[in-house]
């Protein structure tokens, strides 16, 4: 049996895979290991002398109020994103596919809702920043025009609204995209199921819960995983819109890692924050894989 390893039949595929595996090892796995190694030191970008501090960075991580704030913001991001990008997107997809509204109108909404996801994130960030602007922003102007002026506020400038203002933009951008994925899944459901249900007297809401939801289960799980993991890796939109401010109120883990590393010159601590992000996303991915497998068995 051992000798078979050296025959062309096994070694040729391995050789073909080798470049990809080597690249993966060097560019993905090695940095992960290195990151853990570097998190045990105190060092800065400017002066890369390594000073061993053991688990000091991790101890600090656990007592750092900004890390806590960041994790809470990431969890908020995940929860709200799941509500919009998974559940609302599914409902929207079902409505557009159900024939309640005309096909042309459905096509229009499909494109209109999908459109934000093709825009560059910096463009979106800057545009929304203007819309949120306290005096000239369209949001406050509309609020004032319809007599809700008391609700108008500097959305990105207040500690209790900044993170929600950013999360809102994210929903605006991605709900339509997720909706398209659900539409594809719904279109794959055999029409006969709906027809026979109609004959049996099931109304649209019953059809939604008993046919659509179970049939798109796989897509739901994938979207769920993508959304939750994405919410823990978010960086760009926050960085563009508030940079984590005011006073760290909208800080997320990705953002904080960058700030600690490249602003505060604490690369070791930034590595520890990176390790925390890695552990969180790793656990989430692991759960997703487990759920994905039971999905297949069902």
């Amino acid at each position: 049996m051992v000798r078979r390893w050296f025959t062309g039949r096994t070694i040729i595929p391995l050789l073909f895979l080798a470049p990809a595996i080597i690249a993966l090892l060097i560019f993905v796995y090695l940095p992960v290991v290195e990151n853990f190694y570097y998190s045990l030191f105190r060092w800065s970008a400017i002066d890369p002398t390594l000073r061993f501090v053991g688990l000091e960075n991790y101890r600090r991580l656990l007592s750092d109020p900004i890390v806590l704030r960041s994790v809470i913001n990431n969890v908020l991001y995940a929860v709200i994103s799941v509500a919009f990008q998974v559940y609302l997107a599914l409902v929207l997809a079902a409505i557009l596919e159900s024939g309640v509204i005309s096909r042309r109108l459905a096509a229009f909404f499909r494109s209109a809702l999908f459109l934000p996801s093709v825009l560059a994130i910096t463009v979106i960030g800057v545009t929304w920043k203007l819309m949120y602007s306290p005096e000239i922003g369209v949001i406050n102007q509309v609020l004032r025009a319809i007599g809700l002026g008391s609700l108008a506020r500097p959305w990105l400038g207040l500690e209790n609204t900044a993170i929600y203002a950013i999360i809102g933009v994210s929903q605006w951008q991605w709900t339509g995209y997720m909706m398209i994925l659900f539409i594809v899944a719904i279109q794959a459901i055999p029409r006969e199921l709906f027809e026979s249900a109609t004959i049996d007297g099931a109304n649209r809401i019953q059809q939604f819960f008993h046919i659509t939801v179970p049939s798109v289960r796989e897509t739901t799980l994938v979207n769920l995983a993508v959304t939750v993991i994405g919410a823990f890796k978010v960086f760009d939109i926050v960085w563009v819109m508030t940079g984590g401010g005011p006073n760290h109120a909208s800080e997320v883990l990705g953002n904080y890692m960058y700030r600690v590393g490249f602003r505060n010159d604490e690369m070791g601590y930034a590595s520890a924050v990176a390790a925390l992000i890695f552990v969180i996303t790793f656990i989430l991915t692991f759960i997703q894989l487990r759920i994905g497998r039971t999905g297949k068995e069902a």
Partner: protein
Amino acid sequence: MRVPKGIRWFAVGLLSLALLAGCSGGSGSGSKAGETITLRFFHKWPEPDHMAYYNAVIQKWEKEHPNIKIEMEAVSDEAYKDKIRVLMAGNNVPDIYFSWAGEFAWKFARAGQALDLTDAFMNSDWKDAVVNSAVQPYVWDGKVYGIPMRINGKFMVYNKKVFNDLGLQPPKTWDEFLEVCETIKQAGIVPIAFGNEFPWAASHYVGDLNAKLVPPEVRQADYLLEADPETLFTDPGYVEALRRFKELNDKGYFNEGPNAIGHDMARSNFLVGNTAMIYVELEEFVTVHEEMGDENVGFFRLPSNPGDRGDPNVLTGAPDGFMIYSKTPHPEEAIAFLKFLVSEENGKEYVRQLGIPSAAVGAVTEETSFPLLEAGLQEVDKASGMALWLDTDINIKVIEVYLPGLQAVLTGSKTPEQVMQEVRDQALKVQQELKAGS
């Protein structure tokens, strides 16, 4: 489909080779010395008019020195703070790089990333070609590590029409300043345009107030983290500075939601006449000059009250300049280029094209500049000293507590006392780290 064995092996070999080639590319760039050399030049002015100026200077340089090519790169202000660190982390430091003055520059000197220019500068005619007071903030441990490119200071610019209509005069004391703001507010005009999305904007106010409320030697020792741990950042002037800053906000003298808008937007608000005043840098005078006209605006230094314990004549501002990488393979050429860049001839061109005062001696003349700028420079000369930008003058780890604290003071989530306590705690920690490190 069966592929002949030979071809399969060939394909595998080819792929592996391609991968190896891809990995090793880049390391083989060590060209033979002697022929043409390339200097990498990195700064923070990517704006088209600035780039046009630098491109012209580089063209002129390359014509005179055909064997020394300059490879320029520029990113904007906020991004520069990160990118220079990334380059240093990767040991990919440009030969000539921009640096703010003060602590921002000193930390490069401390880490051995900046070339000691003392000999080249002091023992040649170079020292007569550059405004000497602007060199001081680049001196660390008695040695010159950077050369200033331009001079900067911070002034409160006001709309003359608003002041005349309301019968107001530029204030001489802080209390008068508050009265001026109140009168303007009562007239239904926003007194001061203020955009603090990036909190450096607030740090300029607080830096100025600190300089006027805290005795100079105390402030110096605190900023450098050299003060006695017992007294580090305990001077009551710091809290008073935050209180005054907060008062401007709480009394409604700033526009709404300063934390939510950027400085550029605030400036536009002033330029179109929506606000009566704005706190701007000398380098922004040219915009005011172009948009509003010199005759329609005036300016004054932020005033202090008679009893204040700091230096009333100090001005907030700092030169911008360049440093040379300590391990550059071509130090002499880099120095030559820097000399060329901050020469009278190129300095004049700088003022003429960009309307910003160059640090080259003799660059700002009636011919190259405009009245507003000349008046501003005179004020800089009159100042007893410069209080450097707070955010580049204190250790970055302390600043990362101080600046968000300023935003918290504005939103009211923290009191001035709380913020200064946090600054002190952080400063003590960093002080210990520095001691342990050295």
